[in-house]
């Protein structure tokens, strides 16, 4: 059955491979190095384009993010899975989004880019991936201890349409590039923000990814989580497929440059590559999925996932305004402190919303 194809092992392998090859091609077509796709970086660029931070080198409205949400929306509508829902601890999810972005920008990439950096030969990504797994392990500890943000509820259809409509609005800003007296909308003239694949190609590829990922439930955090928590390798196979496909794509396109020093949009401060991703991995696990997954859930009407996405965009503004984001030369002035404070906040969320040290609370 067609419906069942999408949850077969073949389909997740195909989805992973599609994303990996798409990322290599998007890089070839102009996206920044080892950043064919990076959900965190691309949301950060959008935050910059809207003027939420002043880092002039990372300001661009990335059509990939828009395509992910709208591709998922299309799949959800076709397969009758668009189910507007909301109300599961939105404020906590907003803060988890902020912390996930802060952690990602200390490492310089989300879980997707961690894989793509490795596929491009960036050895520093190994420390990020190790951190990611460590963060997921801490999250699993809380889940096993009854961690629960509470149930969401069905809500008015319009609630589920809000983030997709925001994406349509962003797309219009990207196409028409209006210039206000304030300088907005901001588009970088140099740096990573000035490097991008042709808008329409990037958008169509992202629509396809959004569609496939909604159907297959692709998630880079659940990939590791499910292997450990429920001994299920389905999503893990997809992530391995992504890694291999991106690596092969990079080799073919001449984009594979193995090493640690001088890697693009990366630094060699391994303790903070690791630490940043511990924070991100924990925040994503506590929120139920990786940043890509949060976009796909938003597309199918999950307003709590949409709040997480908005938290990430807010977090990007904070990270650059308060110097917690890293640069190629190393962590920002407040980066290490932000990771430590962020971890403490995540631990408080984990302990206070699980059954540790108290009688069972059912939410």
């Amino acid at each position, binding site marked *: 059955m067609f419906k069942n194809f999408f949850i077969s092992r073949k389909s997740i392998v195909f989805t992973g491979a599609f994303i990996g090859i798409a990322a290599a091609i998007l890089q070839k077509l102009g996206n920044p190095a080892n950043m064919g796709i990076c959900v965190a970086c691309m949301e950060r660029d959008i935050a910059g384009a809207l003027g939420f931070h002043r880092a002039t080198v990372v300001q661009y409205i990335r059509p990939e993010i828009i395509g992910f949400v709208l591709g998922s929306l299309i799949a959800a509508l076709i397969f009758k899975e668009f*189910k507007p*829902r909301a109300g599961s601890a939105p404020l906590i999810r907003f803060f988890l989004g902020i912390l996930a972005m802060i952690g990602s920008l200390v490492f310089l990439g989300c879980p997707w880019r961690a894989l793509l950096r490795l596929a491009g030969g960036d050895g520093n990504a190994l420390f990020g991936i190790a951190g990611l797994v460590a963060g997921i392990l801490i999250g699993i500890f809380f889940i096993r201890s009854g961690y629960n943000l509470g149930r969401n509820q069905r809500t008015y259809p319009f609630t589920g349409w809000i983030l997709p409509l925001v994406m349509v609005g962003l797309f219009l800003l990207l196409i028409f590039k209006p210039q206000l007296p304030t300088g907005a909308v901001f588009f970088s003239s140099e740096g990573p923000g000035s490097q991008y694949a042709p808008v329409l190609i990037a958008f169509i590829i992202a629509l396809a990814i959004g569609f496939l990922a909604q159907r297959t439930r692709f998630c880079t955090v659940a990939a590791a989580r499910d292997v450990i928590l429920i001994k299920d390798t389905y999503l893990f196979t997809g992530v391995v497929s992504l890694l291999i496909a991106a690596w092969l794509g990079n080799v073919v396109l001449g984009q594979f440059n193995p090493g640690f020093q001088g890697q693009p949009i990366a630094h060699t401060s391994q303790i903070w590559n690791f630490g940043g991703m511990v924070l991100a991995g924990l925040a994503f696990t506590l929120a139920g999925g990786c940043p890509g997954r949060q976009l796909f859930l938003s597309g199918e009407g999950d307003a709590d996932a949409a709040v997480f996405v908005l938290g990430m965009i807010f977090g990007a503004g904070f990270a650059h305004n308060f110097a917690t984001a890293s640069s190629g030369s190393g962590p920002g002035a407040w980066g290490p402190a932000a990771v430590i404070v962020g971890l403490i906040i995540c631990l408080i969320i984990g302990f206070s919303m699980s059954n540790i040290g108290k009688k069972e609370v059912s939410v």
Partner: protein
Amino acid sequence: MSEQFDVRGLSCPLPVVKVKNKLMELKEGVLEVLVDIGTAKDNVTRMANNNGWKVEVKEQGEDYLLIISR
């Protein structure tokens, strides 16, 4: 008579974790599970199948009723 277990509205991976724990207690028999979104339906079905349970999926309004048995 089987029991109906409601995991609607819970974030990933709670539906699958809660159903798995329930099945481990149950060992054999029938468990009816109510889920609301496709991801939870797929995850629970795959986990149950991997652990030697049969799953029948019925659409029930906007939700899915999973009848898990062995």
